[in-house]
Each structure stands twice: as structure tokens, then as C-alpha cells.
């Protein structure tokens, strides 16, 4: 049969080590065989499914771009903060627009003793974020750095890699060709949060995901 023949030839081509496939190169070889993904679950099944790591990428920089502060971007990371603080790890918040309100975080199940807020002067923010990302004791860095250039993001991405830390940057501007591993655009809507995957390393999908409010686990 010609089709079978074609399939067989395709498969032999795919099995060839000389063929480089962009969609899979980012994941380790063990992941492909065992089905175990390296990501930290986001707490939203729909979002997990559309990301190549089935969760937040570990040891990498993530950008969340919102048109305004307060349009639900913190809801995206609350399940992650709950998970890591329950596991006894800490998160550092760099220059958040407001001081996070402890009762709200506590009622969301986050251990507030493991949340440290850092409010540096504007000129020292990037220095602080880089130091925190490079530190292995710190599991997650949330940062509102203000103006960022592609050069800064590349440097922070390298820091996240050395410190094995997940860095999440919140800002307003979509920087093209940024070195971050995952770039999400978040827009609040009437009954849901609309997420667009602008970039996810290792995947060409630009999914649009709608997360209804209060849908996380």
C-alpha cells in the first residue's frame, strides 16, 4: 500500500537521529519516553495542557503581560505560591504595585511566612531581581520591574537558569524577541481571564485559553 509505505518511511525518518525537531528539543529525552514533565503545575488544567512543560517551566523566566495592574494576574500565580509555600519553599516579591494583603494570601492557602516583599529603589530593582534569581534557596521570584529591555530579560533568564529559580515578570509591554522561555498575555474579561501564549519555547502553538474566574483547583 502506498500510504502504509509512506507512513513507514516517515517513521523511519522521524526515528533518525539526524532529524532535528523544534517542538521537542527543549524537553529532555527522558520526558519523551516516561511521560513525566518537568513543569510546576499551574493549577489550571487548560493552561497546563497548552504548555510544553505541562505547567510553569522550571528554572526559567516567564513574562506575564497585562494592560493594567489588577486584572487577575495574581490569580494566575496563587496556586503556584500555595504549592511551593506548602512544600516549605519561599517566594520573593520585587516591587509589587502594592504591598500584598496578608489575609487574602492566607485565605488562599499561601503560607505568608514564606513570602518576602522587597521594595528597592527603582535603580536597584534589576540588581535585586538578578541576585534573587541566582540564589538556589529561593524557589520563585515575582517581579514588577517597570521598564525592561531585551538585554535585561536575557540577563535575568541566565540568572534564573543558574539559580534554578522560576522568575515571573509582570509588565505592560510586549517585548519582541525577548529571551524569556514563556510569554503570556493576560486580559481580564467579564466572566473569565483570556490568556494568549505569545511564546513558549519548544512549541509553535499560540493558544488562546479562557480561564473562568475561580476555576483553579
Amino acid at each position, binding site marked *: 500500500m502506498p500510504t502504509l509505505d509512506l507512513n513507514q518511511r516517515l517513521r523511519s525518518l522521524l526515528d533518525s537521529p539526524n532529524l532535528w525537531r523544534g517542538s521537542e528539543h527543549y524537553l529532555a529525552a527522558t520526558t519523551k519516553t516516561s511521560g513525566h514533565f518537568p513543569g510546576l503545575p499551574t493549577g489550571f488544567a487548560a493552561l497546563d495542557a497548552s504548555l510544553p512543560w505541562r505547567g510553569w517551566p522550571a528554572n526559567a523566566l516567564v513574562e506575564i503581560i497585562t494592560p493594567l495592574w489588577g486584572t487577575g494576574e495574581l490569580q494566575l500565580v496563587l496556586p503556584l505560591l500555595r504549592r511551593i509555600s506548602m512544600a516549605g519553599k519561599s517566594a520573593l516579591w520585587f516591587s509589587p504595585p502594592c504591598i500584598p494583603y496578608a489575609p487574602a494570601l492566607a485565605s488562599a492557602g499561601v503560607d*505568608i511566612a514564606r513570602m518576602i516583599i522587597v521594595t*528597592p529603589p527603582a535603580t536597584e530593582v534589576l540588581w535585586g531581581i538578578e541576585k534573587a534569581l541566582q540564589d538556589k534557596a529561593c524557589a520563585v521570584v515575582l517581579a514588577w520591574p517597570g521598564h525592561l529591555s531585551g538585554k535585561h530579560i536575557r540577563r535575568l533568564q541566565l540568572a534564573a537558569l543558574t539559580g534554578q529559580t522560576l522568575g515571573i515578570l509582570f509588565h505592560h509591554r510586549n517585548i519582541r524577541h525577548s529571551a524569556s522561555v514563556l510569554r503570556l498575555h493576560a486580559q481580564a474579561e467579564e466572566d473569565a481571564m483570556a490568556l494568549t501564549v505569545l511564546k513558549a519555547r519548544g512549541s509553535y502553538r499560540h493558544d488562546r485559553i479562557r480561564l473562568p474566574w475561580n476555576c483553579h483547583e
Partner: protein
Amino acid sequence: MNSKPFQSSLALHPLRAVRTDKPRGSVRSLTPSTKARRPTPLWYALWLPQLSQQPAIDGSQQVRLEQIAASLGSLSATVSIEAPDSFLFEVGSTLRYFGGIEKIRTRLHALLEPLLHSWTLPRHFHEAVSPTPAASLLLARAACNLLVYRKDNLRAALGRLPLHTLSLPERKKRQFHNSGLYILRDIWRLPSHAVAQRFGHAFTKQLEQSLGHVANPVQAYHGAPTFCSDLECTYAIENKQALLPGVETLLERLCLFLHKRELATMHLHMALVHEQQGRTEVEIMLRQPSRSYGHLQLLLETRLNAVALPAPVIAMQLRVTQFAPFSSHNATLSGVPGPQEPNADLNDLLPLLEQLQARLGNRAVRSIHCQDEHCPEQAGLDRPFGERMPKVIVAPSGAHEDAERPCWLLAKPIPLRQEAGRLFYYSSLRLLSGPERIETHWWSPQEIQRDYYVARNRQGMRLWIFHERQASSQHQARGWFLHGIFA
């Protein structure tokens, strides 16, 4: 001045007593002895009853004891404070260096008399020297200024001591008196097992120790350590990067000092000396004692980078005066989870937080807390990291759990624009839920009566807004305010 010379026991001349350990005229071995002779230990005891008779105010007695012990350090390597008013120091090993016991005694008086004079205390004190610390102490406290060189003579010297001069409970002294025992020799006439049976093993042990039959360890006094190290630069340094090798040398010395003494430090003081006599002082406080070279170096470098140098540096000095005993963390047995300490993980994070504090200031690193309060402003607090909270912090009570709270609470409520009966924040608002009435007690300093609503604007922001029910001191106008954002 008390200048009575020592009474040498049994009319032995002190110096001769030391030298005639080996009988004259004995046949000397022709091969040189390879074993160096250890000097016989001699313990000098001092009794200064005036120290405890005139109690100094507010604990300065300990300071006086330590001051005396520190000055005795110039006479001996082993000094011990025998509370409350006596001292012991070993002179057998320094006898030859100082040139005999009488020389030591002269130096001792020259040391102590100015000290006692400065405290307006009587300058007279009691002293005794013998081969065992316990015997010296007994002799000194019995106020017989005696010098005993040889252990064999101790029994005879101690035998004359009245029993009431021993440091014994009053009941025991009466027991001796009633048994017709007045001096130590009376005790020694009794069979030793009978003494132990009648007066206790502790007492017989004390006697054995004073005769040198039982070891009597002495706890040596070590003064508070201080670390101070200087480094002269070979040329005047203007560039901060060029300072770093010098800083590292100083830190290496400090870490060696700390390792040798099993100490850690929390407070470093660095001084940079400038050409025109000026100094730049840099202080580093740590949250936990540390002696890790890498950690201290990182902190000091970060801190130096933030300091402006007014002039070239020609020398630097590192000084540490506050120390803490070093304690290492216990690791858990692999695979077995240990008991969870609170803040166990923040300990790993401390080096990073201290580095951030060193550059950004203590107030820039903050932790957040909950308080069981109705007033939303007081229910959540943020404080500089490491600051002790005055109140007991409790988890939010059940009342808070059903009511939703915003993740961002504005430091000050913002008045909302109102047009044609509609509220605006970026765009018109739609109420989602509410009201939730929050009132504080009328006696609380911040009296509030508010109805809280959750609203959403067209941009999709969920907002926590309230309606002020009465004009308070804070907000003159009754009206609508934005208080938080459910980000």
C-alpha cells in the same frame, strides 16, 4: 601594704625546696635525658573577702572579678575565678621565668593594689601557694599566708586548719564541733571509711583533692575575645575594586580566628583610613551568627560597593568584638524527614536576604503578617524582615474565610468618581456582591463603619469598594472609596 613574707612550711627555704628535688651527690646518668622535666605545678590562691563583703551595685562584681582575672593573665597561663571572691593561678611553670615566688608576689601586689585602690576597697588580701589548687584555696580562705612546695608537706600544712574555715554548710560545721573535731588533723586521725560514712563522700573527696590524691580540674578563665586586624595598603587606593584583595585578606584572618575558637560573629566593623586622617566606617550586622568566609565576603563586598569613598584609602581595619558560639545545623538522615523547625527554610534564604538588606537597607526587605482584627487596614501588616512582632499573630479567624479579601490593599482608600448615579474607576462599575458591613468598636482609635462591595469595571478589574456610612476623621466626605484590587 601587706608585706609579710610567706611563712615557708616546715622551715623549707622556697628556692632550695625546688632545687633539692633530686638529692645531691646521687650518681648522674651519663646519657643525656631525652625527657624534658615538667615543672611541678604550683597553685597560687588569692582570697579577697572585700569583694564579696562590699557587694558592688548592679552586677559589677562580675566585671571586677574578670578585670582581676585578666590582669592575673600576665603572671600565668591558667587563671581561674573561684566565685565569689577567690582566684587561682598556676605559677609552677612561670616560676623560673619570673625568678622565684617572691618576685611573682611582688608583681602581684603591684598589679592588684592599684585596682583595689581604684574601687576604694581595702588593699589587704590573703594568699597561699601549694601544689594542689584545692589546698591553696583552703589555705588562702583560712587566711594563713603559707607557701608549700612539696605534696608530701601538704598533709602537715593543712592539718592545722580549723574546720570552721572550710566552705561547708553550717549544719556540717556544727556536726564536727559536736563530735569534738576542731582541726583537719582530727579528721585525719579517724579511719577514712568512717569519715566517708559519717560526713559524706563529697567531704572526703574535697580532702583527697586538696592532698592531690584525686585529680582536681580547674576551669580556666578566658577573657572575652576581640578581633582587630589592620592592613596597610602599598599605595593609595581610589578604586573600590582594588580594595577587595585587602578585604579578603582581612576576612581570611577573621575566619581563621573564628574557626580556632569555635565562634561566629554577627557584627563586623570595617574602617577605611583615608590619606587626610579621615575614616570611612562600615558596619555590617547579621541576622544570624556566621563564620562562613563566602557569606561574609559577599556581604562586605556588597556593602562596600554601596559606600562612596571621599578620598583614596591608605589602610583598612577590621574589628569584631561581639561573638556568639558557633552552632552548625543538624542535617537530617537521608530519606528520613526530620522534625520541621519553624522557618527552617528561611535559614537557607537568610544569606540572600542579608545581602539584599546590606545594599537596599533594612526597611526594603519586608515580611507580611495577619492580625485578628476587623478593621481591614489592621488585619494585614507588613514589617521589616526580622523585626519582632509585638502582638501574637493569629491566623485569620473563620469570619474572614467566607468573605473574600483582595490581594492588593491600597495604602489609602481612593475616592471614586460618581456620575449620574454610577461609579467610575477607569470605566463604569458593576456591583458583583455585597454589602459586607465592617464596623470597629467605638472605642478603637480608628472608628470605621463601612459597607464593602465587590465590583467589576469594563477592563475586567475586580475591585473592593466601600461606602462610608458616617463621616469619619479620616474621610471628611461620606461617599464611595476604592480600597483594594483582587488582582
